[in-house]
């Protein structure tokens, strides 16, 4: 489903190279974990997948279902089924969360040539998804993410993911800032989305989240490259020995 080939990318503004020849393949149905120390390029990778303009791909390609997405803008990628759960979701004053959900869901439906959702149907879906994440509907009347706690923001991200039903989910440090109860709820939310036609990329610094979202593959990112890949046991090994062991092998 996702194939990243020899990707090189830099910060557009100052030319700093962050991704240096990254290769990664994630199949439909697979949950892949990307781990790595701070500064290894994890968040940058998630932004590049979503199409953030701040980064420039200088070499290589990103294929989604066999086709390059490099020329697509973020909205086109989203409509094609790529979803990024942000590490730091934006607070957007003046845009009511419910209104935002309606616009986003209908924009994607329109892009796919489907009919717009009627209000009762929309409300029903939102209520169902909110309930499963333990979110109060009243929260959705507030401006998007404004005044939400860290945990509420992360739940709101998963809520969007459930409602938009993407095919490729990228979760950027979704565990950061969550207490254990919230972590379980969020992980449950992700687990219900596991399906044979969907791929999930979980970016995390710690192994903790992977106890709840058990990955099929684990990849270690360091200095903009995948330096080692393995199964879920690799995460346990990292937890035990730290990144130094794996990185040491590289040096």
């Amino acid at each position, binding site marked *: 489903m996702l194939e990243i080939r020899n990707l090189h990318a830099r910060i557009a503004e100052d030319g700093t190279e962050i991704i240096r020849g990254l290769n990664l393949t994630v199949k439909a149905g697979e949950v892949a974990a990307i781990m790595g120390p701070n500064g290894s390029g994890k968040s940058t990778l998630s932004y590049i997948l*979503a*199409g*953030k*303009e701040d980064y420039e791909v200088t070499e290589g390609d990103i294929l989604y279902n066999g086709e390059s997405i490099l020329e697509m*803008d*973020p*909205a086109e*990628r*989203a*409509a094609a089924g790529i*979803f*990024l759960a*942000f590490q730091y*979701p*934006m607070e*957007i*004053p*003046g*845009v009511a969360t419910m209104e*935002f959900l309606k*616009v*986003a869901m209908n*924009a*994607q439906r329109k*892009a796919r040539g489907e009919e717009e959702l009627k209000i009762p149907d929309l409300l029903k879906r939102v209520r169902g998804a909110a309930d499963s994440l333990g979110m109060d509907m009243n929260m959705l009347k507030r*401006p998007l993410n404004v005044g939400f706690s860290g945990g509420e923001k992360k739940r709101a991200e998963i809520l*969007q993911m459930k409602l*938009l039903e993407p095919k490729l989910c990228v979760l950027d440090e979704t565990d950061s800032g969550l207490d254990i109860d919230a972590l379980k709820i969020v992980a449950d939310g992700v687990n219900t989305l596991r399906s044979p036609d969907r791929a999930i990329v979980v970016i995390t610094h710690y192994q903790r989240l992977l106890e709840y979202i058990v990955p099929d593959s684990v990849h270690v990112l360091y200095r903009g490259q995948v330096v080692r890949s393995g199964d879920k046991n690799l995460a346990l090994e990292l937890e035990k020995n730290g990144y130094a062991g794996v990185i040491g092998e590289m040096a």
Partner: protein
Amino acid sequence: MNIHAQTTRTAAETALLDAYAGRIAKLPGDASVTVKRDNAVEALKAGLPTRKVEAWHYTDLRRLLSSIPAFDATAYAEKIAPVLTGSSVLPVLNGVADKAPTVEGASIATLGEKLADGSLGDVLGIADRDDTIGAINSAFVADGFVIEIAEGAKITAPIELQNVQAGGQTHSRFVVKAGAGSKATIVERQTGTGEALVSSVTNLDVGEGAELLWLILQEQPEGATHLGQFNVRIGKGSKLTLFVMNTGGRLVRQEIRASAAGQDSEFKLRGVNLLAGQTHCDVTMVLDHLAPDTYSTETLRNVVTGKAQGVFQGQIRVAREAQKTDAKMACNTLLLSDEGEFSTKPELEIFADDVACGHGATVTEIEQDHLFYLMARGIDEKSARGLLVKAFVAEVIEELEDETVVDALEEKIGHWFAEHG
């Protein structure tokens, strides 16, 4: 009126004076009114204000008002549907008051009648040497409406003062007295189809304990010059919310001259300026806090695109006896183009020693991170920008609370954005 040496008259200045000579015989008014008109024209002979006049510094009227259309007797304007459904519409069609419906709790007359019978000459005249709009309007005003809202009347259906032009020149005036304890929503609609010169002056008196929501919606076509002036005296314990929205016009100046004259009176100014193309739009407010315990807030949100230029001048003057005045002013601008401009000039003049007054101004662009976030959810760039622009002005509008009003205004903003975004 403006003391500065005038070398030669501009074409527009000459046209104004010539127009008066041609119009005076047709204008309503007894001798007292004619004196006021003549005095106004005398003042205009000194010339239109330039940037050297502080109150006109950002709107050099002499330069910007390069030509003036002649009166057009054949121009025909039609009544249009009101902004708020169910409104009582009082139309002024190309400067002439049309038939008005009866409104329970209010008495309505045309300004033309009142000028003719000499019972209303007092409202004409020039307030001070910066009052060019008052001078032009006093010289030329022909019609409008005079409304008296009875004491204690709660007028449920909104009243729409509909000033529609079809070209040439139109000069109208609305004189409204809201009786003690009355309540009403009034829409002042400034619109039309021609490249007209419009002057429209409102004189409002808010009686003790009255509560008014007044909306000025200026949506003139691209070629029009709109000179608006809103004068208000707010009485003891009364509340006025003035909402001003500018979405059109080529050259626009909307003046607000307000005084919180009675103790415990409250004035709220909310402004939304959506400026596109070549528009030059100036909102200038002078607010006097004259009595103790008066409260005012002014919030403006401006969106500027194309080569548009915007101005907000906000002057708050607190008199010595107006202790415990609480005034807060904020002007925020979203710049959507490199060629657009917005100038803000807040001024506080405080003579009382126990007051809380503050002001702030910002100019920003669309936050790229916000845009990315919305697009990452599948919302295309144009729609995402639209959402963010609407969000920027939404706060000011949603504060109005009345759902019909909020919906109607949001629809107008949607239209503007679809056309100019």
